[in-house]
């Protein structure tokens, strides 16, 4: 029991030295009165791949801008790598690779020259290794062949890759990536996922916002969900998905009998569609094999039996609602 408690609270909700990003009551009210971020208490544990989710306009980019010291919070504090932002920007930001709200290269410079320019803007970067680091970063995002091409001639996905390359110019302790796979082709997305895993294995904490939930589910260890500027939930991805309960499905030629047995065993939310009977998955302590045995004992001929685990998408929609319209 103590084990379970430790697993559910965990270090990720505990503020402490393990946190790479930590905000307290972070709030941004834009001129014009719009509250884009409202009392955010975010804790990103060190070494995690942290998915930052939320519908359009929920305040993800605004949060990232505050974390990077580009805009000042109205109230609240933000610590990145243990130092307050924006006060410690000089010492913190060289250790952070960033992609914010899409790439923005100089169109009249080549990909290579773009990276050299952003690298020379970093006072801690060594000009003697610049060429090698630029080449390495281009190689890592698969842009080596187009390195000598003017950035205005790049496609959206190529610009996105160039932006990622800029974030990878130095070995970083933290990567903050705002929708990194935006505009990428399927191969590109796979490569970025592989890259994120590789970087995480090297010990880099990755904080990424995305709308692609299966992507988050595939690469992230932790996630947070925002809506209308407020943090709805944060924690390990598995715990979030488990929060939305899965469905138990029985396929059988005797649906009525099956429903009877399931009800007798305390199943809720029963739905019968043709030869499929589904119910909310029973709580963890119920042994599914016993349930199956009970069905068979009750004379139900079972064709298929199983629990469909809830996806992160189910959890996300359960949290943020089905509505399509952006909150004003």
């Amino acid at each position: 029991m103590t084990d379970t408690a430790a697993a559910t609270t965990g270090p990720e909700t505990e503020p402490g030295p393990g946190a790479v990003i930590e905000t307290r009551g972070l709030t941004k009210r834009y001129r014009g009165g719009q509250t884009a971020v409202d009392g955010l208490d975010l804790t990103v544990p060190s070494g995690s791949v942290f998915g930052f989710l939320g519908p359009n306009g929920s305040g993800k980019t605004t949060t990232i801008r505050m974390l990077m010291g580009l805009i000042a919070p109205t109230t609240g504090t933000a610590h990145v790598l243990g130092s307050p932002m924006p006060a410690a920007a000089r010492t913190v930001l060289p250790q952070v690779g960033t992609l914010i709200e899409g790439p923005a290269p100089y169109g009249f410079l080549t990909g290579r020259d773009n990276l050299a320019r952003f690298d020379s803007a970093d006072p801690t970067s060594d000009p003697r290794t610049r060429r090698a680091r630029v080449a390495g970063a281009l190689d890592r995002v698969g842009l080596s062949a187009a390195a000598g091409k003017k950035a205005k001639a790049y496609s959206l996905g190529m610009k996105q890759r160039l932006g990622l390359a800029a974030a990878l110019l130095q070995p970083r302790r933290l990567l903050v990536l705002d929708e990194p796979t935006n505009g990428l082709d399927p191969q590109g997305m796979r490569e970025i996922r592989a890259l994120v895993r590789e970087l995480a294995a090297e010990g880099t904490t990755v904080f990424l916002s995305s709308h692609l939930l299966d992507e988050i589910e595939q690469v992230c260890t932790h996630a947070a969900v925002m809506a209308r500027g407020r943090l709805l939930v944060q924690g390990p991805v598995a715990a979030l998905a488990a929060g939305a309960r899965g469905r138990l499905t029985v396929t059988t030629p005797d649906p009525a009998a099956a429903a009877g047995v399931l009800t007798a065993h305390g199943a809720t939310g029963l739905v019968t569609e043709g030869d499929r009977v589904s119910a909310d998955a029973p709580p963890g302590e119920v042994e599914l094999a016993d349930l199956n045995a009970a069905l068979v004992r009750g004379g139900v001929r079972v064709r298929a039996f199983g629990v469909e685990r809830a996806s992160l998408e189910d959890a996300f929609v359960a949290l943020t609602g089905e509505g399509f319209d952006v909150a004003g």
Partner: protein
Amino acid sequence: MSQAERTALAAPRTPGRALWTLGLLRSELTVMFRRWRTLALLGVLAAVPVLIGIAVRIETGDGSRGGPGDGGGPAFLSQVTNNGLFLVFAALSATLPVFLPMAVGVIAGDSVAGEASGGTLRYLLVAPAGRTRLLLTKYASVLVFCLAATLVVAASALAVGALLFPVGEVTTISGTRIGFGEGMLRALCVAVAVAASLIGFAALGLFVSTLTNSGIAAMAATVGVLITAQILDTMPQLDAIHPYLFPHYWLSFTDLLREPVYWDELVRNLGLQALYAAVFGSAAWARLTTKDIGV
């Protein structure tokens, strides 16, 4: 992992603050002088002395001497036929009121606002360039442009003047004669004085540039301020404010052609430019360091 990355990981991060600042400045200058826009502005400025030279040449026929003081136009024009070196002074007098500051206004106005509208400002700041360091670098590069633009006009005028007209000893405004070498030195001093005349306006353009996220708007506003100041400077009713208008002492560079040099207005010009640089430089700093970079 490629060879390059291994080098990168192995390389120590050596701090060295003087080099840092120079690194960004070098990048800034390279980027500025590689842009077509900068080259086009310099090209237009280089063409002005060519046009003046050809016009004077055609006007006076085949090198026949135009009498002193004939015709209007920029100062020194009448002496060009006697001495090609005077084309330098004539061209600088012709470009200083409009062409030179306009070019500076374009570069200064676009310096921060252009980065903001392109979105590159946020990537420079998270690099992190540092807001103060970025502003200083931008101002330094605009000043380098002021000097480069002036030197381009002077060099083009010198080449055209030497090509189309005789060169030799220079008669100063005071009537004394100085050698050609000394004349060249004076021409260089004049070019530097003209470039220095643009220091204040460059700071003003930089400040305007921090106010907006549109490069075009900043350029237009900066050039608008220039024209307004020029108009105000010609209105006798506003005599009281004239000494505080940045173009007021611009033509003081002609005093370098007196013998001995008459320093009064030159010094006053430099003081006024320094005042503008201090006021608008501080304003630009106050603005950029507190600005929300929302694009």
